[in-house]
């Protein structure tokens, strides 16, 4: 299979911070707001270079969403940043009315998403945010897989005219996608071609899916690995083409089952190409304290679990 090289572990949030700075250097309409998490969101470089375009909101996320909407109405392109839970669940009604229904050009920078937030535990680990954001009419939902892709996704979000939810994470993870590959919203990326099973992954699970594919290859199972960095709008054509080819699908995500990518893909396949499917996700649970890798293993969202799911899916053909 195609070999992917980890060029050095980096956190995806740093990809966001770098992308925000590059986007802002090219477009003076870009402004940034945070709710007392400038450092965690890697907004320091932006704030240092553009202090007049950086707005500290304090620990008051609801107002931050509304203020961003107001800035967007006047023609600015605001990026609002906080931890994933505090910029989705905590402010769902604000995102719904001020951003989605209000159709304001606000970019929601959502860091520390999923269980890999780690030691802070369940209050800070949202495994429901994709479901919430997918449910909002017109919301674009992005979940890039590494530093390079997150940087490019940030540039794409800045260029796109409309609300975008951009999800990324806290821990340093392998950086393996090309640095200069432009991010196309709504386009799946086929990382490896294979005829036996399709592994659909998003965010941190993409690297895990590649590891699983290597394990499967040694067993004689050729896995097609597809990076679904855009969760909404979903690249249905890419999913269907692969599902028709392999006849077995696994969906892996650092999120719970309800409303996640797995259910989104299941909806597409049920309508157009019923296919044996297996899900790799956090099921219906809250997280807990622990290291990111220990949590991914304990909640069944790592490479060995993806490989298991693939064997099961192949067995159901």
């Amino acid at each position: 299979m195609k070999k992917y090289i980890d060029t050095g572990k980096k956190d995806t949030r740093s990809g966001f911070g770098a992308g925000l700075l590059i986007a802002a250097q090219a477009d003076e309409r870009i402004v940034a707001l945070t709710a007392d998490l400038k450092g965690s969101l890697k907004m320091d470089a932006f704030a240092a270079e553009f202090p007049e375009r950086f707005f500290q909101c304090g620990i008051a996320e609801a107002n931050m969403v509304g203020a961003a909407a107001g800035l967007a109405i006047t023609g600015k392109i605001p990026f609002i940043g906080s931890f994933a839970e505090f910029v989705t669940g905590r402010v769902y009604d604000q995102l719904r009315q001020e951003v989605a229904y209000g159709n304001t050009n606000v970019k929601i920078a959502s860091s520390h998403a999923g269980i890999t937030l780690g030691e802070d535990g369940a209050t800070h680990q949202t495994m429901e945010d994709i479901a919430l954001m997918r449910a909002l009419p017109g919301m674009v939902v992005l979940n890039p897989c590494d530093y390079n892709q997150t940087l490019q996704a940030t540039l794409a979000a800045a260029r796109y005219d409309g609300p975008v939810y951009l999800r990324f994470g806290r821990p340093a993870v392998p950086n393996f996608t090309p640095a200069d590959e432009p991010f196309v919203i709504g386009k799946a990326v086929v990382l490896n071609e294979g005829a036996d099973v399709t592994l659909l992954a998003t965010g941190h699970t993409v690297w895990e899916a590649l590891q699983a594919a290597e394990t499967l290859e040694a067993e004689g199972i050729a896995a097609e690995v597809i990076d679904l960095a855009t969760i909404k709008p979903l690249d249905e054509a890419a999913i269907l083409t692969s599902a028709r080819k392999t006849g077995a699908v696994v969906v892996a995500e650092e999120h719970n089952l309800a409303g996640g990518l797995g259910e989104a893909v299941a909806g597409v396949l049920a309508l157009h190409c019923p296919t044996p499917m297996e899900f790799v996700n956090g099921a219906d649970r809250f997280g807990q304290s622990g290291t990111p890798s220990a949590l991914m293993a304990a909640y069944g969202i790592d490479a060995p679990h993806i490989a298991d799911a693939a064997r099961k899916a192949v067995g159901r053909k």
Partner: protein
Amino acid sequence: MNKSKEELGIIATQVRRDILRMVCMAKSGHPGGSMSSTDFLTALYFNEMSHDPATWTRSGKGQDMFILSAGHMTPVYYSILSRCGYFPVSELASFRQMGTRLQGHPSVRKNLPGVFQASGSLGQGLSAAAGAALGKKLDKDNHLVWCLCGDGESEEGQIWEAGMFAAHHKLDNLIAMTDWNGKQIDGPVDEVAGEGDLAAKWDAWGWRVIVAEGHDFDSIAKAFELAKAGAGSGQPTMILFKTEMGHGVDFMAGTHKWHGSVPKPEQLEDALKQLGETPLGDF
């Protein structure tokens, strides 16, 4: 525009007629707060705001902006917008009907001129107004951003988040107004969730505070003059308009019961008779 207080009074009477006829035709809507806000909003749109319906855009560039945070007050909002020329007065008849641009609560998805932002879920418009005021500062556009909140609405915590934010960022181009009618759906504000001294609270939040009589055009004009003098002060301004829910019709005045209730046909007839006809004419 520079209307005399007599002229404003005539417009306000017509707006109250519009409000009552709109909610009766739609058999739903919120007349109470609309009628308590009618006088100062009429003065705002006809005398105080720097705006031009003919060149209006949602971005608000080169004009004052107004955000209705208390989104249920659409009857007064739509009536005044149409009477200013944002859209035909005849369109008021479509209020709350299928396919209308005049949604129950303000929408930006129907291309209704004059509406800058969706509202209805309470407590959020002041934040949007603060953001718009920041945007104007970045653009070095000296026009003002106005916002109307309800006193019941001010029970929402986000109002106070916005208050902190606007003061911290020195948004002296933001003028908020509170329709201080003392009533909300379930009863008097003091009985539902007493807010205490709103003037002291906004003062403590770092805002310039002006208290005015919301049904007295002299007091209203003075309040707006004082508010506008805040430009350059480094502080946002809150005008607390002391008003009466349902003002202008005896059986509706001063009670929370008309927050979201609609007069019966014979009550409408009585109310319109009390208000009297105006040269502007009904829609």
